[in-house]
C-alpha cells in the first residue's frame, strides 16, 4: 500500500510539472425555512448541505490543447434527490488556425438577459441543486467553432440527453406532486437521440452584439403531466372528492422534440446596456414565442464613494397557453446591485420578479464578501409573496377532471421562503 502511494506520487510529480493543475472548491450551506411546509414529508425548518467540485486541468502543445475534468457532488440532509453527483466537465479543446474543436462533456451558456435565460438551451438545468436555475448538468457534445471576420459560428452535435433534476418528496422547495424517474419521450430513441444546434455571433464596434441560434432536438424543459389514475382512484375522487388513502400520484416528465430559434441582441451606448432575447419554439403543443428585454445601467462612484449602484429592468413575455409549462407569462424584473469595490469585494443584490397577471412576486436578496484569500461567504433570502397555497394532489386532479386549466403560478414553490448562509472554500 505504502509502496503504491510512493509509486503514485512519483508518477504524479512529472504530471504536475508538465502543466497539470489540481484545484477546486468546497461549499457548506445552511437554510432556514420561515414557513411550515405544506407537505408532511418535508416537515422541517432547517436544512444543511455540502458540495465538492474539484478541477483537474492540463494544457499542452503551447496551450493549443486543453483538458478539463470537473466532477461535482452534493450531499443534502433531507432530500435524497438533492444528494447527487455529476460530471460537469470532461473535455478536450483543440485550437486550430481559425477554428476550435471542443469534445466531451461541457457547459455552454447562451444569452444576455438576467430575468429568464430563454435562448440558453445546450445544457439541462440541475434544478434540485439551485432554485435559481443557474446550475447546469454536464452535456456530452462535439462542438466545432469557426472564427471568421464576419463572426463566430458554433456547430454542435449533442449525443445523449440529460433529464432535469427535481426535488424529492422531502425537498424544499418541491413540486406539488413528486416527479417520476420514468420520463416519457417523444423520440423513440428516448434519451439517446442525437440533437443538433448552431449559433452565429458577431460583435460590431458601434456597440451592437448579435447572436442567432437554432436548436433541433429534445426539449430541456419537460411538461409535467399528472400521472393517470387507476379506476378505483378515479371513482374515489369522483365520489368523495379526495384520492383514496395509499394512492401515490406523481408527475411524469414529458420531453418533446422541439425546434427552437433564438435571438440575442445587445446595444451599448453611453453606459446603457440594452438587451433583448427572444425565442420561437415549435414541437411542444402549438408554436409559441417568448421575449425578455430590458436594460442595465450602473451609477458609478455613488455619493463620491468608491461604490457602484447597478440597475436592471426587464420585461418578460410569453404567448404559450399552457399552464403546465411555465409559471411566467408577463413579468417584470427589477434588480439592483450595490458593489462596494472594497478589498473584500462586498456586494448586495436585490431582485423582484412581479407577475403582472397573477400579481405574484418573487423576491431575492443576496450579499457576499470574501474573507482572506480563499474563503467566500454569502447570505441569501428568497421570498414568494401573494402566492396561493399549493393545491393538494386531490384538488389538482379534481381540476384536471373538470378540465380547469388553472395556472399553478408560483404555487408549487409557495410556502418555501428561506434564508440561506453559504461558505465556499477555494483550494
Amino acid at each position, binding site marked *: 500500500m505504502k509502496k503504491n502511494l510512493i509509486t503514485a506520487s512519483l508518477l504524479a510529480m512529472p504530471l504536475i510539472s508538465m502543466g497539470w493543475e489540481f484545484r477546486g472548491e468546497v461549499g457548506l450551506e445552511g437554510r432556514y425555512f420561515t414557513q411550515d411546509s405544506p407537505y408532511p414529508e418535508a416537515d422541517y425548518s432547517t436544512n444543511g448541505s455540502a458540495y465538492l467540485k474539484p478541477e483537474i486541468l492540463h494544457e499542452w502543445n503551447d496551450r493549443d490543447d486543453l483538458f478539463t475534468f470537473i466532477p461535482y457532488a452534493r450531499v443534502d440532509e433531507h432530500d435524497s434527490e438533492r444528494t447527487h453527483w455529476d460530471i460537469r466537465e470532461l473535455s478536450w479543446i483543440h485550437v486550430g488556425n481559425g477554428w476550435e474543436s471542443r469534445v466531451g462533456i461541457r457547459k*455552454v451558456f447562451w444569452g444576455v438577459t438576467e430575468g429568464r435565460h430563454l435562448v440558453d438551451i445546450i445544457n439541462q438545468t440541475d434544478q434540485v441543486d439551485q432554485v435559481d436555475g443557474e446550475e447546469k448538468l454536464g452535456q456530452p457534445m462535439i462542438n466545432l467553432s469557426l472564427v471568421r471576420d464576419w463572426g*463566430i459560428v458554433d456547430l454542435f452535435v449533442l449525443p445523449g440527453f440529460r433529464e432535469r433534476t427535481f426535488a424529492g418528496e422531502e425537498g424544499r422547495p418541491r413540486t406539488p406532486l413528486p416527479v417520476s424517474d420514468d420520463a416519457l419521450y417523444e423520440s423513440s430513441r428516448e434519451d439517446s437521440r442525437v440533437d443538433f444546434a448552431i449559433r452565429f455571433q458577431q460583435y460590431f464596434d458601434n456597440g451592437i452584439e448579435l447572436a442567432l441560434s437554432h436548436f433541433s432536438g429534445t426539449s430541456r424543459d419537460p411538461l409535467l403531466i399528472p400521472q393517470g389514475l387507476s379506476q378505483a382512484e378515479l371513482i374515489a375522487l369522483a365520489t368523495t372528492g379526495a384520492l383514496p388513502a395509499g394512492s401515490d400520484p406523481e408527475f411524469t416528465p414529458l420531453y418533446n422534440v422541439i425546434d427552437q430559434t433564438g435571438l440575442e441582441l445587445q446595444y451599448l451606448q*453611453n453606459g446603457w446596456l440594452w438587451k433583448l432575447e427572444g425565442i420561437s419554439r415549435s414541437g411542444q403543443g402549438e408554436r409559441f414565442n417568448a421575449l425578455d428585454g430590458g436594460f442595465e*445601467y450602473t451609477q458609478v462612484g455613488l455619493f463620491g464613494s468608491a461604490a*457602484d449602484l447597478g440597475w436592471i429592468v426587464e420585461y418578460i413575455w410569453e404567448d404559450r397557453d399552457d399552464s403546465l409549462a411555465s409559471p411566467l407569462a408577463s413579468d417584470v424584473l427589477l434588480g439592483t446591485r450595490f458593489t462596494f469595490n472594497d478589498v473584500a*469585494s462586498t456586494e448586495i443584490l436585490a431582485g423582484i420578479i412581479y407577475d403582472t397577471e397573477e400579481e405574484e412576486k418573487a423576491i431575492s436578496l443576496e450579499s457576499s464578501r*470574501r474573507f482572506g484569500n480563499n474563503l467566500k461567504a454569502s447570505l441569501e433570502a428568497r421570498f414568494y409573496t401573494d402566492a396561493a397555497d399549493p393545491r393538494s394532489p386531490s384538488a389538482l386532479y379534481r381540476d384536471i377532471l373538470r378540465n380547469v386549466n388553472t395556472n399553478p403560478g408560483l404555487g408549487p414553490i409557495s410556502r418555501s421562503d428561506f434564508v440561506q448562509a453559504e461558505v465556499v472554500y477555494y483550494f
Partner: protein
Amino acid sequence: MTSRFLTAGLALAIAFPVTTIAQTPEEKGLEIAREADARGNGFGDFQADMKMVLITQRGDQAERELRVKTLEAKGEEEGDKSLTIFDTPRDVRGTAMLTFSYKTKDDDQWLYLPALRRVKTIASRNKSGPFMGSEFSFEDMRGQEVEKYTYKYLRDEACGELTCYVMERYPTDKHSGYTKMVVWLDKDEYRTWKVDYYDRRGSLLKTLESSDYSQYKDKFWQPAKMSMVNHQTGKATDLFWSNYQYDTGLSEADFNQNSLKRAR
C-alpha cells in the same frame, strides 16, 4: 540596422521638428507626451505577470495575482487589445477580461465568468472606480494614449541622478476621476518616475512612484514596481511586475470571445 535607425530618426524629425522659435508650455508638454508615446510604439506584443499588494491604513495586506497579454494596435484609429486573467484571490480565479481600447472613444470590455461559463459585456463607464479594490483606478490601469489628455510643460527638475521634465496633464474625458496630474519623466529615456493625481475638487489625491526599470528588446523600458499611495485615505497599493516577455507570437486570434472563454 543603422539605416533603419536613421530613417526612424528622420521620420521623427519630420513629424516633430525641433522648434527653435518660442514654444508655448502647452506645445512643449504635447511634444514630450508624443515623444514618450513614440518610444513605447512598435512593441508588437507582450505578456507579463503582476502581483498586487493592497495595504490598508493599519498595514494589513491583501494580495491579488494576474497575468496580462497585450497586442499592439495595427491601424491608426484602433487601440491595443489586451487580455487580463485573474489567478487570485481564489474565488475570482479563471475570470478574464478582454479589452479593445480606442484612442478617441470608450473601450469595449468583456468579462468572462467561469462559474457561469458566461461572457458579460461591461457596461459601466467606470473610470474612477477602484481596480480590484486597489488604489489603482480603471483609468490608471489602461494605456495612456496621447489623445486622452491635454498638456502643459512646467519645468526641468532633478529626479535622483537624472533630470526630469515636469508637466501637467489634463484628462479630456469628462468621466475621469481627476482634474489634473503632474508627471515626472526623465529627459534621457522618457520613463515616468512619478505622478501626482488631483481629484475633481482639485486636491492632491494620490501619488504613483515607479521604480526598478529594465529595458527589453533594447528599446522598451518597464518598471518592476509601481507604488500608489492615497493621501486622503492612507491606503496604498504596490504592483510588482515580473516575467516580461516580448514577441510571444500573440495574434488577433488570441483576443476574441473564444480565447476569452479558454483563457484560464
